[in-house]
């Protein structure tokens, strides 16, 4: 019997992008459902009653929420293709640690970079660049965080690259000039079809944010 896979998502969401990439890596056919976050569907509210957030992966009627949990689920169910986590327990622990680091830092700090001003924004920019430094340290000379192959941490992090124009333009700083290694990793990752098909163009995300700010009446 064929698997029924549905992804409840919102195209600019970095968390949703993680699932798109994971499913593409595994060659899984799925139905993509775009949610209007100001008018959440009954299916979303039913499938994720605790947080009412996207992304939600629905596999044969069973809902899995929280993007990194859902990515691990995808990796475990479709285990015969493109493993995202390594098999060695120590390397797995490292991958989980760094994916969690991305989760704790990138979204919140990035959000502060483009939504705040003055001292708060300066502090956020500094913290953002520090995070990128730390991540570059972890990457080292490897082509991907996963080593020779694209893995769990790469999936967790690459979606934030699509938001880079937003951070740089509103923050009025350049990540590329300080962190060419990070940019090189991102471009290498985007060469993969699973990534380029799942992660929108930086310009598209920037235009979306501009539009949203206009609607909200922000300067």
């Amino acid at each position: 019997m064929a698997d029924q896979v549905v992804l409840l998502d919102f195209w600019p969401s970095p968390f949703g992008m993680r699932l798109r990439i994971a499913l593409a890596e595994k060659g899984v056919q799925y139905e993509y459902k775009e949610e209007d976050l100001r008018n959440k569907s009954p299916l979303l509210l039913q499938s994720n009653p605790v947080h009412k957030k996207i992304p939600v992966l629905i596999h044969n009627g069973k809902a899995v929420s929280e993007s990194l949990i859902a990515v691990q689920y995808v990796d475990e169910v479709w285990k015969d293709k493109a493993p995202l986590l390594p098999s060695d327990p120590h390397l797995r622990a490292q991958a989980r640690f760094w994916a969690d680091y991305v989760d704790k830092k990138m979204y919140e700090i990035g959000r502060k970079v483009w939504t705040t001003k003055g001292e708060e924004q300066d502090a956020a920019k500094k913290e953002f660049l520090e995070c990128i430094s730390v991540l570059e340290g972890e990457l080292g000379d490897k082509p991907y965080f996963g080593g020779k192959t694209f893995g769990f941490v790469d999936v967790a992090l690459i979606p934030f690259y699509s938001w880079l124009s937003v951070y740089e333009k509103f923050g009025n700083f350049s990540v590329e000039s300080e962190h060419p290694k990070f940019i090189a990793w991102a471009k290498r990752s985007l060469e993969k079809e699973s990534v380029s098909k799942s992660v929108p163009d930086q310009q598209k995300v920037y235009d979306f944010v501009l539009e949203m700010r206009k609607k909200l009446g922000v300067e």
Partner: protein
Amino acid sequence: MAITKSDVKVLGMWPSPFVMRARISLNLKSVDYEFLQETFGSKSQLLLQSNPVYKKVPVLIHGDKPICESLVIVEYIDEVWASGPSILPCDPYDRATARFWAAYVSEKWYPSLKGIGAAQEEEAKKAAVEQVEEGLALLEEAYEKSSKGKDFFGGDEIGYLDIAFGCFLGWLRVIEKLNGVKLLDQTKTPGLVNWADKFCAHTAVKDVMPETDKLAEIAKILAAKLRGAAAPPK
């Protein structure tokens, strides 16, 4: 080759629920370890070296390799000592469910519990208690679904979610005592009341779960520090 006690170390502090997660997991797998306690207010060289990113406990040191973040440590222990009882369920959907609730308890519920202690006025305290109780209602439901009539979230034996949530029971009891509230309640959360007793009595748990009175002492010291920090300068 036998693992000697010094092969496995846990850097931690006895009151920390996060540290408890690592210790319960090692106990469950019957793994001997050395417990190296950090002193309140200062961080050892070993800690700063082993966890340069967060500089926090717990850290598991296996051989010479450090592993940080309590839930990452629990999964590592489960995978390395695979011949012992399983901590995570086998089925991918059950694993996702256990991970979901472990994240909820750590990121939403436990901060709301601490909110009761931090609340300065009656109104704020009442609101904080309500939030915690809402969370417990969700967890009661999750318990019913997951335990399927057995004692633990993991079924017959304690598992990932039992460990992730149970570690907070010491602090829950302290908050109940110091604030005169009953959070786990026979009428509202009967399943969790039964679960809490069984969890705390479990052989892997009872020696690492701190006594409520000892934790209450620590809580009073911490609260005094917080009040001192919050008080406006004269």
